[in-house]
């Protein structure tokens, strides 16, 4: 094997899993032997560093930006919910005494204008016209199920 070893092959040689031709190359190539030595030295340094120091959580004073952002968002959501809860059921506008607001006209008979997927648009329109302009007493404000409407 004449080509120099890749970093991955070097690592395998370091871990004792190198192929025989790679190991043979290492014995004959000073450059690769030097790279292996450097890898060994780096891994020793890394191992020592990981052995020696223990990372710990940050204290309360070390709050990161994302934590502040989350805390503020949570507080805003809680405030909005609390505000909405306290206003539930309260009318927004108090009308002066004596002022009346026109009530929305109740829906008259809905029987004639029920939309059906099978019903053509013209039939719906005809039913609407019949109901709106030529409706009988049954479709008026009176009880559609009352006497005379059956």
């Amino acid at each position, binding site marked *: 094997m004449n080509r120099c070893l890749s*970093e*991955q092959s070097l*690592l*395998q040689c370091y*871990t004792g*899993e190198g192929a025989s031709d790679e190991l043979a190359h290492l014995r004959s190539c000073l450059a690769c032997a030097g790279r292996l030595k*450097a*890898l060994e030295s*780096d*891994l020793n*340094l*890394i*191992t020592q*560093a*990981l*052995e*020696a*120091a*223990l*990372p*710990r*959580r*940050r*204290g309360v004073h*070390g*709050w*990161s930006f*994302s*934590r502040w952002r*989350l805390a503020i968002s949570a507080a805003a959501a809680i405030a909005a919910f609390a505000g909405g809860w306290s206003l539930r059921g309260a009318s927004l506008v108090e009308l002066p005494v004596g002022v009346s607001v026109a009530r929305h006209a109740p829906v008259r008979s809905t029987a004639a204008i029920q939309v059906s997927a099978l019903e053509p648009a013209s039939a719906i329109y005809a039913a609407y016209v019949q109901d709106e302009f030529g409706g009988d007493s049954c479709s008026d404000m009176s009880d559609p199920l009352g006497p005379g409407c059956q």
Partner: protein
Amino acid sequence: MGKVDVLPLEHDDFRDLYAEHRARVLRLCRLILADADEAEEVAQEIFLKAFRFYRSGGRPEAWNKWLATVAVNACRDRLRSSWWRRWRGRTEEFDEFKAHSHHSAEESALQRETQRMVWEKFGRLSARQREIFALRHFEGWSTEEVAAQLGLSQGSVKQHLFRAVRELRKGIGKEL
């Protein structure tokens, strides 16, 4: 680890086992979790599990392998469940720094900086890469054993290990 200290006398064997393996298990948890406090908690859970296993008559072929396997699984569970961990922020304090007394102040500062950089890079590795690095370099498991334990192919283990080493070397200023 107070729970283990109050063991009845007939469990002296387990006490020895605990004394023998505690540091190793703690180190493994610390490496996988990259957090000393969580590692303490998980190591405690692991020895509690080990004690229950021991009390029920369980005697594995090799306690070190058994404990390492339990530790890897426990750490993985912890990483999966601790969604809030990200919220707590990164771990950046090194309060158990062991400086060598014969080093000068400058050398100690340099050493500390190297440790910080290495831990920073290590913390950025994927959990899988940390597991593989820890088992391979600290526990001395073979690629075959790691692959069997983690349910990966040997090629995949080698690839993960290579990437982990490459990133860690960057941490000490070695760009490959």
